């Protein structure tokens, strides 16, 4: 019995909690990608670097607030800077839309030209972030690092295995749940949200019904900018900020959006968690879990790790390829334009 409890705590500590946290971050990022795809009908390659930009602004503001001696007690000050970082990111993406995408929209170009334009925007944002904040690792999480420490947990429960719960993980899950609930309420219940879904469903009929396309596009960018910033800051608080990592997040985020069904918000959420659990689950070494669960004589000698952690990107890539081959529309039947 104790062994099962130990194995469960071990799994929670190294697989369950990290995957839920990472999944929530991916889901928020994939939601932005999927919304842009649903409304503007292109795959936005600049989304990862939009996240990096938003996080950079949040970091600068956090440093400013720290210099002023502000603190939120146990919580990181970055939470206070988040609303302002969102405003800055929204201004950036709306500015890009006005300068770049609007032109192509008016010319009614093919989606692939939008994608190429977004690659250009990606390089621009990429450069912008590197000029201002550099390329190195930055840890901007302050406040108390742990909510529960492994040793405290062990003393409390008397188990051999400890469960550590970091503040950033709890913040990520709480914020992500709140943001997703708010977003789905907005899309399902409000007039503007419904008009966005209508526009995504049938653009011509939406125009016929008097829905203003430029307004829908504007609202979409506001939401995508906010989601990107929130996802970026949460990821940064959890794992530290590094511009290149944010660029790399594009792969799992796109994999999540496509696996869930591109253009379907609920798909992005499910996809985010599927990707996260696959990445963490396939690269974790199960040896000690099996130690607890199997009879003593069966004690394993290997690590029982399917893939080394270096291969975690291969997991998203593999899932992406499998989905595209087996069910290209994804779990929730997204639409391919």
């Amino acid at each position, binding site marked *: 019995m104790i062994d099962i409890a130990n194995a469960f705590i071990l799994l929670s500590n190294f697989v369950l909690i990290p995957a839920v946290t990472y999944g929530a971050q991916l889901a928020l990022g994939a939601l932005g990608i999927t919304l842009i795809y649903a409304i503007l009908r292109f795959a936005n390659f600049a989304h990862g670097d939009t996240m990096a930009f938003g996080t950079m602004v949040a970091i600068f503001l956090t440093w400013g607030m720290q210099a002023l001696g502000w603190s939120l007690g146990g919580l990181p000050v970055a939470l206070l800077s988040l609303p302002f970082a969102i405003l800055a990111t929204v201004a950036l993406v709306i500015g890009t839309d006005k300068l770049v995408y609007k032109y192509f929209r008016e010319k009614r170009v093919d989606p692939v030209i939008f994608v190429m334009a977004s690659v250009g925007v990606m390089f621009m944002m990429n450069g912008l972030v590197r000029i201002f904040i550099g390329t190195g690792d930055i840890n901007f999480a302050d406040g108390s690092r742990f909510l529960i420490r492994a040793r405290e947990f062990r003393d409390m429960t008397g188990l051999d295995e400890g469960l550590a719960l970091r503040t950033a993980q709890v913040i990520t899950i709480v914020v992500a749940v709140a943001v997703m609930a708010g977003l789905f309420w907005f899309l399902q219940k409000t*007039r503007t949200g*419904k008009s966005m879904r209508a526009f995504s*469903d049938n653009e011509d*009929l*939406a125009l*016929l*019904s*008097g829905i203003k396309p430029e307004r829908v596009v504007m609202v979409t960018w506001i939401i995508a900018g906010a989601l990107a910033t929130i996802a970026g800051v949460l990821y940064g608080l959890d794992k530290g900020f590094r511009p290149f990592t944010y660029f790399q997040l594009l792969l799992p985020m796109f994999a999540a959006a496509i696996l869930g069904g591109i253009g379907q918000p609920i798909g992005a959420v499910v996809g985010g968690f599927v990707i996260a659990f696959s990445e963490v689950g396939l690269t974790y070494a199960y040896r000690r879990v099996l130690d607890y669960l199997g009879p003593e004589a069966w004690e394993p000698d290997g690590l029982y790790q399917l893939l080394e952690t270096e291969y975690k990107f291969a997991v998203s890539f593999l899932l992406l390829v499998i989905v595209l081959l087996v069910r290209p529309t994804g779990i929730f039947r997204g639409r391919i334009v």
Partner: protein
Amino acid sequence: MSLLAANNMRGGYGAADILQDCTISCDRGEVAVIVGPNGAGKSTAIKAIFGMMNLREGEVSFGGKTLNGMPPQARVEAGMGMVPQTNNVFPGMTVEENLEMGAFLRDDGGAGVIEKVYELFPAVYEKRNQHAGELSGGQRQQVAVGRAMMTEPSLLILDEPTAGVSPIVMDELFDRILEIAKTGVAILMVEQNARQALEIADTGYVLVQGQNRYTDTGAALLADQEVRATFLGGDQS
């Protein structure tokens, strides 16, 4: 003068004109039907009336005002409703949301009108919480008409509303359209099912190669030997 008077329309998509001096009019409470062979420019005529295509010559006047150059959206605000032939619902939204989107231009959200649409189409009311994409062809068509009715248009344009539905559903749909006409709405409709459509038509327009060939009451066209022989598939009773 009629509510809608589209006079001497000439125009097309490329260099060649599809419409060659085509004239259509329709008044409140009236059902006008455009029939004719494939490629006669029937759909093009209503596209021109609705502003989805620019005219080279001619004039579209609606309620005494000239609409030339006005985009479709503005024509909806001016009191036209349009039911396209295909893709005429939001498949991923519920039936009720489809109707709400039809009322997007209204400041009041269309709460009272939605009841009227439900009264007119009881089947739509029953399916109000289902996704429009899951409905049968006939039901979807009813939702499409209901969506267009949400702005309470004075002119309702329908592009082949009975395309691909069964004869029973077609009769049902025509009944509903007559009911709408009785409330004082002008109905302008393009139809492939010429015989059945002319039976309910106050005015029928037979278009051939973008021109008016015959214009008369529906009953008179049905009685006309030549029209029957040429366009209604022989001399059936």
